[in-house]
């Protein structure tokens, strides 16, 4: 039983008034001479028991009368058994057709099960109700019952993730703003735990949230992200296991490159992903790195696709990616750049990773020239000031200062640098663009089209030239870092790639795909779902049968205040009768 005006229940304290009046308002009665007191005493003796019972009955009746009136003022809602018409209700039907609803469970689509329940809910509405439909895009759609039925009937699995907490909160606000007797939110979803992890929905009082209980959970593996860098594709996997105790198995991954560009041919590579040690959302996150034949590909933008073997949820088994294969950089090293740099460039030239030219100039302290410059500090400390002036003239915000302490290099962007020792270096001062640090101080920075090093690429300064990662470092430096990478962004949506252009140039791409959290099909527990959807006072997770019984029951609950007022009248009449009864 619930109350429309629960605050009125405070008035129950008034039930103590009759007893308090009885105790506190003992008056001194007027005194009257009356000779036949002996008759009076005899009558009172005979009636004492009856009068005590009568007084007790009056006290009970008056207390009950106050209690009943207060309850009537609170307007209790008593549920009606069975069906019957409901009072006008504002209802938002949330049909979660996010990618996870495309999972196949027990031979049928999850969305089909949700759609049947949603259709049934809409069919139960009347012309007096106000009904909205929300799909995974979060848009509230109004319209006639027939229009909503048609929309639901034609709904397919979408590509957008639906945050159920936010969706329910929006829906609750919408129905709460309606001047109707009933306010309900019907949620038809697979209730993924990841869709309920954003907190707790603020559901106004008087709004009921009914959620259909999820069906059986199934295992799923999906591609969370594909990153292409330095000639290799890193494929991150996500997903869920069916039940507890399932053991993650190695997953074969296929990379197809250039499938949509027949003129360039198709490159296929395969890898085997094994579960990683890190866990995301309680599930092991795994990744596989598949090398790509960058040298054999013509420069330009390549579109590829990473694919898993089909499972219960097909939507996350494929994910596209975009990769820009750049032409070899045209590089020149000045005489002051050092022998190690020259040797590395020679190796890269042999591998056709660079060609001779002046697009990128690697120098050793003199003024940066060329459209892109990689500048090392001068060998002679006396030339540092001159070099700084040259950098300033080029518009570089960085400058070398005094010598820094030895240390090791740390870099999140260039893994090959990490851990390499530096014995001699200049401190670099300036603004943003730090690529690597030594002892927490900038060591490799970028400012526009100029890259500055804190040490010369010489074994007298650092162990890097003698390290195996030196040539890849120089390769990344000239081909990627100093030139700048093409921006590849990701967005939620149907899997495809969109390119951004500026004039005739393609300057970036956006890769669309489903949200990685959709791959985790683990349903939330009823307790978690109830808590996230408004709390146990306002939200319920119900089986299909109970859902059918409970929907609109908020308004099928009749206001019992009328009945209570009748009872109050009866009590008042009884009280009057007992109070005025002379025998």
């Amino acid at each position, binding site marked *: 039983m619930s109350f429309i005006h629960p605050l009125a229940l405070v008035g129950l304290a008034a039930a103590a008034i009759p007893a308090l009046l009885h105790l506190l308002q003992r*008056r001194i*009665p*007027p005194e*009257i*001479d*009356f*000779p*036949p*007191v002996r008759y009076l005493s005899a009558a009172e003796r005979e009636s004492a028991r009856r*009068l005590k019972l009568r007084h007790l009955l009056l006290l009970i009746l008056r207390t009950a009368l106050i209690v009943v009136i207060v309850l009537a003022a609170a307007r209790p809602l008593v549920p009606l058994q069975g069906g019957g018409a409901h009072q006008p209700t504002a209802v938002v039907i949330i049909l979660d057709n996010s990618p996870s609803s495309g999972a196949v469970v027990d031979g049928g689509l999850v969305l089909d099960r949700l759609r049947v329940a949603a259709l049934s809910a809409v069919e139960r509405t009347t012309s007096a109700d106000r009904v909205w439909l929300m799909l995974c895009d979060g848009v509230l759609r109004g319209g006639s019952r027939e229009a909503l039925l048609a929309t639901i009937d034609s709904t397919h699995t979408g590509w957008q993730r639906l945050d159920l907490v936010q969706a329910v909160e929006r829906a609750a606000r919408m129905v709460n703003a309606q001047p109707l007797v009933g306010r309900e939110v019907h949620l038809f979803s697979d209730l993924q735990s990841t869709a309920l992890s954003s907190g707790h929905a603020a559901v106004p009082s008087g709004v009921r949230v009914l959620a259909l209980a999820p069906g059986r959970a199934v295992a799923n593996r999906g591609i969370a992200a594909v990153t292409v860098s330095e000639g290799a594709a890193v494929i991150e996997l996500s997903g869920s296991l069916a039940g507890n105790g399932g053991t993650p198995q190695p997953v074969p991954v296929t990379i197809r490159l250039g499938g949509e560009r027949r003129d360039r041919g198709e490159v296929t590579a395969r890898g085997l992903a094994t579960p990683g040690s890190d866990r995301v959302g309680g599930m092991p996150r795994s990744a596989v790195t598949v090398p790509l034949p960058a040298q054999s590909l013509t420069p330009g933008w390549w579109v590829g696709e990473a694919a898993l073997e089909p499972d219960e949820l097909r939507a996350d088994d494929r994910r596209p990616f975009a990769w820009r294969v750049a032409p070899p950089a045209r590089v020149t090293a000045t005489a002051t750049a050092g022998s190690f740099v020259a040797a590395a460039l020679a190796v890269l030239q042999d591998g056709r990773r660079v060609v001779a030219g002046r697009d990128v100039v690697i120098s050793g302290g003199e003024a940066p020239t060329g459209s892109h410059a990689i500048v090392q500090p001068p060998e002679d400390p006396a030339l540092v000031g001159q070099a700084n002036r040259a950098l300033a003239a080029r518009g570089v915000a960085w400058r070398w200062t005094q010598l820094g302490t030895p240390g090791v290099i740390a870099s999140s962007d260039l893994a090959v640098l990490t851990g390499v020792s530096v014995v001699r270096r200049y401190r670099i001062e300036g603004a943003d663009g730090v690529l690597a640090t030594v002892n927490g101080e900038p060591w490799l920075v970028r400012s526009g089209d100029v890259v500055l090093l804190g040490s010369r690429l010489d074994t007298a300064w650092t162990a890097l030239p003698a390290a195996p990662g030196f040539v890849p470092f120089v390769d990344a430096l000239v081909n990627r870092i100093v030139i700048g990478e093409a921006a590849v962004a990701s967005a939620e949506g149907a899997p495809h790639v969109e390119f951004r252009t500026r004039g005739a140039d393609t300057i970036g791409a956006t890769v669309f795909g489903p949200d990685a959290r959709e791959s985790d099909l683990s349903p939330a527990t009823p307790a978690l779902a109830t808590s996230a959807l408004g709390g146990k006072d306002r939200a319920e997770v119900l089986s299909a049968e109970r859902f059918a019984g409970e929907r609109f029951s908020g308004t099928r609950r009749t206001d019992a205040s009328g009945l209570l007022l009748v009872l109050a009248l009866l009590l008042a009449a009884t009280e009057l009768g007992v109070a005025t009864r002379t025998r």
Partner: protein
Amino acid sequence: MAQRLDLLDPAEVARLGGIEIVAEGVVEGFLAGVHRSPFRGFSVEFTEHRAYQAGDELRYLDWRILGRSDRLFVKQFEEETNLRAMILVDASRSMAWQGAPERLTKRAYADRLAAAVALILLRQRDATGLVTFDEQVRQVIPARVKAGQWTRIVRGLLDTPDGHGTAAHAALQRLTALLTRRGLVVLLSDLLFDRELALTALRYLRHRGHQVVVFHLMDPAEVELSGPPEVRFRDPESSVSVVVRPRELARAYADTVRREIAAWRKACRRHGIGYHHVQTNMPFGLALRLLT
């Protein structure tokens, strides 16, 4: 046409004047309706039979009926003269009570009724006397038939103040010593005293051969309980008080009063004592008629 005073409201009649005027007016009206002495005694003119009661003189037994039917009956004779009557008026404090300002107190009603009875008896040449009492005998006017007796009786009534408690049996016992000759004893009282003790005295009078008639006077407010929602009722004689809600107790009180009246009536009948319940709003003529 002038109305008969004996049939008017006692309080209205009382407003006409003092006891004498009221009594005379009432008696005039009353006698206009009867032609013979309403009082029966033991004289020479036989009138009827009645069942023998303890205390009756054996010489009035009808031996013929006894012989025929083995039942005891005494003969009654219409009295012609020389009836000795004593009027006993309760002057206790409880008698000075009235339930409403527009009604007479029980004492005022009793005084006027006593004066009227006395006047009737004296006009019939019956010796009539008066005793007033509360816890003691206050006034004793011996039964006489001479002129000025009625005036003395009226003065005796007027000179008797309202008393305190009531010890009727003591007064009645003393009265038995005063009444040496058999006659009529009329008791006017609210009977708010111990019934058994009072009955003992009345039985004694009856045993001595007196014809005893009791007028149980009550104010209507004593019959039907009413008043404020809650009230403390105090007995003016004993100062005993009790707090009640009249509306709650009205029915039980009425039952108690009814039982008390019935008990008095039954006890009096058992002992051959005439009993009449009279409320102070009853016209005097109707009260006098009870004596006939």
